[in-house]
């Protein structure tokens, strides 16, 4: 088989169906990545138009262009769209597109999950855009502080759009994060040990783990606030034992790491592109990895610096102030490692490099003002002024948008297959960069003169009218620049010449692929010996195309890929990937029913959607696995590997584990919120604590023992090729008993009586939800056993169910224990 025939055969196997139907059913990382980036760009344009409306309003004093009701929606949606609908999905799309090629694998770990995430993002975002067009968009600021965002300050449906739309979109962030972690850890070219991981992959691994640990607090907060708004459960209402500060904690525990979740992908692009532009390799790879991990961890210890003016004790503030300045150290390490890399090589001024220089000029300033606002007394003055607005635009535009534009122009041949011809990009560059600094540099000074953020008019005689006029002119120049970037890309897509392979002479594996990248990404999977495989062996792309790596011979029309050992990168097993499917978009649409039901208060839609989701999930999972034991298969180069379905811990087990990490953080946030209300909220203790009684504790202890032992009994029976029924039955009985224990809590409390009762309802609901998930999984496993999908070798699914079943038991023990704790001692 020659290279061309291999290409055609692999394209036939891996590509999506032609036409628009193909876009709806595709599960391919190239398609999904591009669609993510395309939709994110569309939201960026909408967010940008809102920004221009803001700048029009503030260009002259006492502008009557918009009244406060409209203006408040405009600035709230500008922030919300840029943070949730633009920044995160854009880098997720970029990552999905380039990461598999960089790692030398053929797709992301869970292709259908990628597609599901995409559609949740599209549908959830549409809900918010609908609210904007209908004039009922959220209007209490993008951080949604109650009571302003609760029924007291926002009686209308506006805030519900935010809470429900954003939570829907967050499904895509969580699913993308699970995928990125699993892909980086399990799917790499043979021999690519963690030590040889491309630096981009290290960054995205850290980012994905941060998403899994940072988003759950916000999801929890959104659920609590929506429950308060919809059912009067008083989590944030002080009269009934709630505390509005709880929202601020949950929100900023999310939103501070979020800043680094957005910056680190930018840093990943810089660390990848800058050495290529300087014709050298990255200085201090290990230092950068350590700095990135440190940044990821430290970023969770700084959230209080958004709350310096809420009246917390000064020594507490001092701790967070020190942590906030400390986080500048790993950032500094990266900045100086990049400058050192430039000194090591010979920098060339291509367009991506121009954007990197703009990054330095902008981000360093934003970092310096960031250190300033981390100093508590200065924060007391500048908090909620335009100094902060200017600061975070320097950080986010400088640290994210500029690097993404560097990445766009760097990887453009991958996306379009064409090399840039027209020089519009340079004009656009100067317009954007000069326009940006023209907009925001002087706004720092407006903030120091006392201009508060979110005011809807500029007062005459305030001293900041001229600054605002100049800022508006700069803003429009920047907008024209961004429009030119889009135009530049569009024109180049349409008319420029085809790109050759590896136009930048880079060393990482993604440049071994054709331009535009083929659907299968890698014609064969090469053996990797260093961090820059193409510098070791410039002939590698040709050898990959000739099928000299692993899986070079397409077989049986199957989407075949290799999974590797996490640390060493040795090939572990052969994975058959799912093909194009309509399931993801249907699943996303049915999931949407859940959210729309909440939004329009058609609560019957909620259980209907949940049942629908369970049915589709069963269908989804049923297509995996195999009805009989299969022999290990040759994968090329003399290597014979077992199938993933015959591993004790198949990729799905790892995916479940990473999803459970997010779940653990959710549970932790819930217990944190409970403890916070208990110790800080003014109107505690409640009139009465719930007494544990006898029935509940007996049910939970007995249920946990039964379910814990039952699933192990079933797994043991399967390992010995015996019938798993007794174990499965015990597990089932145990889970039902756990659910009953949670039911006793619901039966003995009134959901809207006091924040204590409301919290117990959420804890019990969380336990019941996990019990239902585990029950459905146990039933699924039973059906699989009946249908012959399980054996002593095909044990992976039983282990996945074991994870979820054990987790349900643990949250029941911990959660219900915490619910009964105060009542047991009073």
């Amino acid at each position, binding site marked *: 088989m020659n290279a061309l025939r291999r290409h055609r055969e692999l394209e036939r196997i891996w590509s999506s169906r032609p036409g628009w139907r193909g876009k709806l059913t595709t599960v391919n990382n190239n398609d999904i990545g591009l669609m993510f980036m395309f939709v994110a760009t569309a939201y960026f344009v909408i967010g940008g138009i809102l920004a221009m409306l803001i700048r029009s309003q503030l260009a002259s004093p006492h502008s009557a262009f918009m009244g*406060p009701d409209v203006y*408040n929606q405009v600035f709230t949606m500008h922030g919300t769209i840029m943070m949730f609908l633009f920044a995160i999905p854009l880098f997720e799309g970029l990552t999905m597109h380039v990461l598999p090629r960089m790692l030398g694998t053929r797709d992301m770990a869970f292709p259908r999950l990628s597609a599901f995430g995409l559609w949740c993002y599209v549908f959830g975002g549409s809900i918010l855009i609908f609210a904007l067009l209908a004039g009922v968009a959220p209007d*209490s600021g993008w951080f949604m*502080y109650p*009571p302003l965002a609760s029924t007291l*300050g926002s009686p209308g449906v506006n805030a519900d759009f935010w809470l429900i739309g954003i939570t829907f979109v967050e499904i895509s962030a969580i699913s993308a994060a699970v995928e990125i972690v699993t892909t980086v850890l399990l799917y790499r070219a043979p021999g690519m040990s963690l030590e040889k991981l491309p630096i981009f992959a290290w960054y995205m691994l850290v980012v994905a783990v941060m998403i899994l640990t940072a988003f759950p607090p916000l999801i929890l907060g959104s659920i609590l606030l929506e429950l308060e708004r919809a059912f009067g459960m008083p989590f944030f209402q*002080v*009269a009934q034992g709630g*505390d*509005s*500060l709880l929202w601020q904690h949950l929100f900023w525990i999310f939103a501070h790491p979020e800043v680094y979740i957005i910056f680190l992908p930018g840093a990943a692009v810089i660390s990848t592109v800058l050495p290529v532009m300087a014709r050298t390799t990255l*200085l201090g790879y290990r*230092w950068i990895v350590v700095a990135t991990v440190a940044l990821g961890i430290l970023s969770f210890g700084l959230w209080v610096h958004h709350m310096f*003016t*809420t*009246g917390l004790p*000064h020594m507490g503030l001092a701790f967070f*102030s020190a942590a906030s300045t*400390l986080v*500048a*150290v790993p950032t*500094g*390490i*990266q*900045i*100086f*490692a990049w400058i*050192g890399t*430039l*000194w*090591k*090589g010979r*920098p060339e*001024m291509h367009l991506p490099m121009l954007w990197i220089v703009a990054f*330095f000029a902008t981000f*360093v300033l934003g970092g*310096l*003002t960031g*250190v300033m606002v981390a*100093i*508590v*007394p*200065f924060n*007391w*003055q500048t908090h*909620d002024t335009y100094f902060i607005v200017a600061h975070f635009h320097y950080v986010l535009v400088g640290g994210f948008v500029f690097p993404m534009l560097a990445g766009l122009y760097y990887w453009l041949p991958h996306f379009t297959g064409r090399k840039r011809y027209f020089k519009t990009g340079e004009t656009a560059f100067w317009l954007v960069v000069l326009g940006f600094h023209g907009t925001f540099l002087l706004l720092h000074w407006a903030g*120091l*003169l*006392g*201009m*508060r*953020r*979110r*005011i*809807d008019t500029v007062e005459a*005689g*305030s*001293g900041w009218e001229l600054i605002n006029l100049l800022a508006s002119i700069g803003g429009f120049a920047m907008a024209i620049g961004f429009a030119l970037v889009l135009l530049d890309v569009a024109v180049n897509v349409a008319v420029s010449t085809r790109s050759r392979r590896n136009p930048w002479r880079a060393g990482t594996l993604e440049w071994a692929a054709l331009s535009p990248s083929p659907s299968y990404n890698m014609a064969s999977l090469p053996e990797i010996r260093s961090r820059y495989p193409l510098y070791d062996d410039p002939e590698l792309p040709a050898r990959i195309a000739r099928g000299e790596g692993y899986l070079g011979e397409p077989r049986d029309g199957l989407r075949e890929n290799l999974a590797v050992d996490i640390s060493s990168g040795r090939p572990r097993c052969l994975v058959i990937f799912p093909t194009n499917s309509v399931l993801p978009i249907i699943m996303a649409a049915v999931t949407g029913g859940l959210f729309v039901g909440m939004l329009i208060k058609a609560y019957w839609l909620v259980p209907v959607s949940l049942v629908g989701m369970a049915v589709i999930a069963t269908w989804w999972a049923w297509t995996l696995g195999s009805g009989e034991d299969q022999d290990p298969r040759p994968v090329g180069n003399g290597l014979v590997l077992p199938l993933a379905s015959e591993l004790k811990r198949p990729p799905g087990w790892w995916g479940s584990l990473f999803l459970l990490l997010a779940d653990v953080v959710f549970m932790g946030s819930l217990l944190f919120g409970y403890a916070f209300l208990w110790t800080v*909220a*003014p109107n505690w203790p409640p009139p009465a604590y719930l007494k544990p009684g006898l029935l509940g504790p007996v049910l939970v202890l007995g249920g946990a023992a039964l379910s814990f032992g039952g699933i192990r009994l079933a797994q043991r029976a399967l390992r010995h090729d015996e019938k798993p029924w007794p174990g499965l039955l015990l597990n089932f009985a145990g889970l039902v008993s756990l659910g009953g224990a949670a039911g006793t809590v619901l039966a003995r409390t009134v959901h809207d009586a006091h924040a204590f009762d409301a919290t117990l309802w959420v804890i019990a609901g969380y336990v019941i939800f996990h019990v239902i998930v585990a029950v459905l999984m146990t039933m699924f496993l039973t059906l699989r056993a009946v249908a012959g999908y399980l054996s002593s070798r095909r044990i992976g699914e039983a282990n996945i169910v074991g994870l979820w079943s054990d987790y349900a038991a643990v949250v029941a023990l911990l959660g219900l224990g915490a619910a009964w704790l105060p009542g047991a001692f009073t």
Partner: protein
Amino acid sequence: MLAGCTESLSIVHPAGSAAEVIATLWWVMLIGATAIFLLVTVLLVLSFRRGEQPSGPEADARRERIWIQGFGLAFSLIVLAALTGYGLYVGERLLPRPGPDVVTVRAEGARWQWRFTYDDAPGRTTLGVLHIPARRQVDVQITTVDVIHSFWAPRLGGKLDAIPGHVNVLRIEADTPGDYAGVSAEFNGRGYTGHRFIVRAHDDAGWDAFLRGETP
């Protein structure tokens, strides 16, 4: 009386000791940040103007020592430690410590008004104007009747939030008698832009008159 209108909300035109130390902190940080930014710029520009560089693991190890351990780690740590220490010192000075001369007032935020009461004049309530004595330390006990607000008179000191169910105490001080502008500085809905107040600092005679109920 409202000092130069364009400066009425300015952080860099302090009119009391609390605002003064923060303004000084700002100027120090501005000088430091400018110096660091220039350093980075120079290092960046120089990287483009150089010939062939030595390569190999030894040269890289040397570079890591200079760039990462030297600039990235040591330089950052020293600068940040010094700044954090300075910030902590300033923050401690601003704390509302008890003293014999401290005047206590209470500010209650509502949409979109401020209501002030006075420990030294029980029963006295003013709307939109907070009366204080000049040259004396004043503790403002801040709270709210509805959503979150923030009490901020920039020329007299920093801001502090008014949070339902909580009372926060802010220390302010005015050096000279006069009117000082104040605003609510936490977004609170449609009337936010116009949610203002005035801090009226009296001389000793004026303050006594206010306490006796002779000034409106």
